[in-house]
């Protein structure tokens, strides 16, 4: 697969909740190894777009293609596609009745990607990547928010995804925990992981993003390189938004 191949293609995508049009005509393509950061005010539709990419939300109209396969087609196995897309949630969503290690190996073992021994060995490596080797046997409830979020990242990585989706991964964290999580994400970006990130961490966006997409009112208002968006925003709404968040 070459670098120009699109991992994700969203074509004229709409999403309605009854009469409420939350996503309007979104076209968004993500290339292999690309890091795309979605920014914008609350309720702009960023999270919805992210959740549509792995089918947690359905589309009302339009097509979403993952590696060329249209996920809204009945014959496409959404479970198989999700194996290739890791997702990290705002509230971590670790499985509270399992240890950290069990959280990480659940999917690889259940989906027969590896036997238990191999999955366990690999899981320890991923826990090392996120700096939590010593917490393998801990229960999620005994970890801090930042630690839980790093376990959640390890859990997603255990399926060897081609794409990682991050839905406001640091919004629920105490400020002193944010750095550790961003550090792990930075490492992933440097290793060439294809990533779509919804975040309010503008500094981080500027640093790691190949492309920044500004959402407002369910639409893409503007997109470009971090320099283009942060230093020379074209749209008034973008300027207003950035003024607000950068001052805070």
């Amino acid at each position, binding site marked *: 697969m070459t670098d120009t191949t699109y991992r994700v293609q969203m074509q004229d995508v709409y999403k309605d909740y009854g009469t409420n049009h939350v996503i309007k005509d979104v076209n968004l393509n993500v290339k292999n190894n690309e890091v795309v950061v979605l920014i914008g005010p609350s309720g702009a539709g960023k999270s919805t777009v992210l959740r549509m990419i*792995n089918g*947690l939300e359905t589309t009302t109209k339009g097509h979403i293609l993952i590696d060329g396969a249209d996920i809204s087609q009945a014959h496409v196995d959404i*479970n*198989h596609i*999700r*194996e290739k*897309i*890791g*997702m990290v*949630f705002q*509230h971590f*969503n*670790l*499985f*509270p*009745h399992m240890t950290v290690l069990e959280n990480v190996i*659940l*999917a690889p073992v*259940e*989906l027969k990607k590896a036997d238990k021994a191999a999955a366990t060995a690999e899981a320890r490596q991923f826990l090392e990547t996120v700096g939590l080797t010593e917490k393998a046997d801990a229960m999620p409830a005994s970890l801090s928010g930042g630690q839980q979020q790093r376990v*959640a990242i390890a*859990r*997603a990585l255990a*399926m060897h995804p081609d794409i990682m989706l991050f839905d406001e991964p640091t919004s629920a964290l105490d400020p002193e925990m944010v750095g550790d999580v961003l550090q792990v994400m930075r490492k992933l970006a440097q290793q060439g992981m294809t990533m779509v990130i919804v975040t309010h961490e503008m500094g981080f966006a500027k640093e790691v993003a190949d492309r920044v997409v500004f959402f407002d009112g369910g639409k893409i208002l503007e997109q470009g390189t971090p320099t283009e968006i942060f230093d020379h925003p074209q749209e008034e709404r973008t300027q207003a938004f950035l003024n607000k968040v950068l001052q805070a």
Partner: protein
Amino acid sequence: MHRKSYLTAFTTLFVALLFTLWPAPTAQAAEKTYTIGTDVTYAPFEFANEKNQYVGIDIDLMNAIAKVEGFKVNIKPVGFNAAVQALEAGQIDGVIAGMSITPERQQKFLMSDPYYKVGVVMAVKQGSKIKSLKQLKGQRVAVKTGTAAGAYALSVKDKYGFSTVTFDDSNNMYQDVTTGNSVACFEDSPVMQYAINTGMKLSIVTKPANPTGYGFATNKKNTALMAKFNAGLKKLKANGQYTKIVQKYLGTGSKKSQAAANKKNQETDRSFWGLLKANWGTLMGGLQETLLVTIVAIIFATIVGILIGLLGVLPNVFARGISTTFIYIFRGLPLLVLALFIYTGVPSLIGTKVPAFVAGIITLTLNEGAYTAAFVKGGIEAVDVGQMEAARSLGLPFGKALRKVILPQGIRIMVPSFVNQFIITLKDTSILSIIGILELTQTGKIIIARNMEGFKIWTMVAIIYVVIITLLTWFSKWVQKKVQAS
């Protein structure tokens, strides 16, 4: 496995288990066996003796007639109303239960020649000032449902200006008078005489009215059995066996001869401990049945409840509809109505008998299963939606996500409800006494029908329930700790 095949597999299992519980049809014997229904509490015509064997004028008469006429009988003490309904529904072949021959009954059933002549008498509490029907104006009177004595009371109710309260068995009716809730009751003369001679503190104050006879009833088409009964009765009257049977239970009419007759069938020590000792075996037999019904019902209700509860959380409108409807109907129906419907209603619909035990298990399975389904569904829905999303986002299919991630968390939420439901099931088995299952409550009723010691026997029954529920609670707490610790 696919969801639908789970459902099919479960249905097959349920039906298979039901059929194993269903008594296999007995091999055709040389002598035909008839199933005869009778009352549980109508001494001296039918009652359980202290060995818990059914005896009484009706029972001995029926057995003697069967012997001289060459057939077999299987006598089932299911209660008067249940017996009559079972006869209508074709569940049984005949009823012998001190049943007065009335024109209405002759229209519905075949009634035999009268085998015992009776009249309706009025009884009051000993020492009561009420001596005649005229004094009943404005008073409350106890009657028993479906009886000729009860019908007589209703027929003169307006004339004498009294109100009535209805009971299902004689003992409760007598108790209502001895406790003073009602001032009088109406009962067939020999039954009333027997109760008084056995220690019930009532007095008969009227002469027998509306003389009729007791008759044996069968279905209109069953002329063969009816002919045998009438022929047998004639033979017994001729050879003197009939008089012997009557005297065995009623003596020669005096209190003294009654006491002598009772000795053969009654406890002699009437203290709490004496009664407990004499009835221990019977009560434990009832408890055993209660526990058996409870355990079988809990197993079925839990399986049904979990499956119906799971249907309620599937991403399929049809499955959820089934779940909601099941819960709505069977949680809404009173257990008593459901039990009677399945035991006496369904057989007239499908044309086959439903044994009481099977009917009882189905009743509890549907009712307790509906409650179980409701809290299983609720328990699953109480798990944070983020858990399902996280599991699905890893590529786990719905079923796997449910099993590995949602259910283990949901079950922890459900455990206290399960414990609660088990205890409720145990208590609800007592309602099945209505369809004649010989569980603890029914056992208590039967003992009281014989010895009229309501207070002491109900105290024993209550204590047994409390002890068993305490043990069950301890056990559940232990299980709960294990689950929460794991």
